[in-house]
């Protein structure tokens, strides 16, 4: 398998996933709707908190709870097309190195997740920060943490979605495996988002310290997922 043919296969799988998603809009719609509904529920839950309550104190946690559960919904759907009509067999029957499949599915999941996250953020800000104090640090710091954490979510999620796609009760199985593995990333992402949102002296340094944590998690988990993928699909 030459490098160029692997690149061609990577592009083919990614393009196929993009075309199918653009046609069906299953993943982005279900994730987007989930994110929107979660925000509405948050707004109701915080309705009686009063004007003196600084919503920014809980905003990072609320954002990441919504995004973690939203990503599980999307990841569960990401292999539905492959399972449908046995397409996964045709894909595995082609002379493609299994890590190429992993990276292509990972890239697709990352892209869909980022699209929904970046569309959700302005809605979140509108619902919770309207008429209140805004972000304490430049908003691009929030974009950095969204991207960094989404890499880890997509990497681990792609591996787990492949593992659980043929299991009974795959939705529950994915959640049971996904949430504990996400704990370190979630902790760091909430910390970094908090530092970006609150602002003030020393928060930028705190932000980058948490981002190092996120980056370390991404590297370790994506490499582990890459290494395990052949084993996971090669029963």
């Amino acid at each position, binding site marked *: *398998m030459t490098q160029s*043919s692997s690149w*061609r*296969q990577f*592009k*083919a*799988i990614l*393009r*196929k996933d993009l*075309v*199918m998603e653009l*046609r*069906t809009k299953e993943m982005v719609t279900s994730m987007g709707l989930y994110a929107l509904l979660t925000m509405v529920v948050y707004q109701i839950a915080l309705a009686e908190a009063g004007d003196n309550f600084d919503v920014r104190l809980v905003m990072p946690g609320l954002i990441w709870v919504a995004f973690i559960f939203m990503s599980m919904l999307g990841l569960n759907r990401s292999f539905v*097309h492959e399972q*449908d*009509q*046995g*397409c996964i*067999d*045709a*894909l*595995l*029957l*082609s*002379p*493609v*190195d299994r890590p190429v499949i992993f990276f292509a599915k990972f890239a697709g999941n990352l892209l869909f997740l980022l699209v929904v996250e970046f569309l959700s953020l302005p809605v979140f800000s509108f619902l919770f920060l309207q008429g209140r104090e805004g972000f304490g640090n430049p908003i691009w710091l929030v974009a950095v943490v969204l991207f960094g954490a989404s890499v880890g979510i997509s990497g681990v999620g792609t591996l787990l979605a492949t593992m659980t796609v043929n299991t009974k009760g795959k939705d529950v199985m994915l959640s049971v495996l996904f949430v504990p593995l996400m704990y370190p990333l979630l902790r760091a992402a909430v910390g970094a988002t908090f530092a970006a949102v609150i602002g003030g002296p020393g928060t930028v340094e705190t932000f980058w310290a948490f981002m190092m944590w996120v980056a370390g998690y991404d590297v370790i988990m994506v490499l582990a997922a890459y290494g395990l993928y052949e084993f996971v699909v*090669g*029963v």
Partner: protein
Amino acid sequence: MGENARSDNTVEVRGLTRAFGVRKALNDVSFDLPGGAFLSIFGPNGAGKTTLVKVLTTLLNPSSGTARVCGFDVVTEAVELRHRIGLISHNPLLYQDLTAEENLLFFAEMYGLDDPKARVRELLVDVELDHRRLDVVRTFSRGMLQRLSIARALLHRPDVLFLDEPYSGLDPHAVEILDGLIAQIRGDHTFVMISHDLDKGLELCSHALIIANGKVVLFEDRDDIDVEQFRETYRATVGTGVA
């Protein structure tokens, strides 16, 4: 194309066993199939026919034993082997939300074909689906899906074609097209077909294999088969139940 298929023993299976937990779906299966042969595999439901084809097509690893197809080991040389084999299943193995042309172009890219568009067009004409090439596969009838599935399996000009109950649910016109395509490419390919239809399987085959409880009950050259005796053996194995 077909160089390996014409050499002796395109398929070599030695002591092949595949277990799922404690249950052995394949139990010490051995046989050789010469190049250019057409093997029909018969057996009751759960006998191990599909597991055998999945191992030979690299979709499942054996628990023990070895299998070589076109001279390539199904475990250690799986990537090389995948260039030489094709699979037509009762499942179409096609993406429902892509068009016929998009499906074939995707698999053409996966196999690294030099001129994917020309090959795809040629095959769509062969399976009489050129006029529906821009339609999403979800709108296709069962017969059309199977014809497109045949085109997908033939894209990379495989030496060995595996057919897992390919006639299942086909209308007479689709059966005619599938028969025609098999007849057209038969000289250049080795075929391994799972069938529940004794008449069809025996009509097409050069070799026949009956499998039950994961074991080979009978493996014979078609010329040596006494059809009545073969039917009796088959009926007896169907009664033995699943593995």
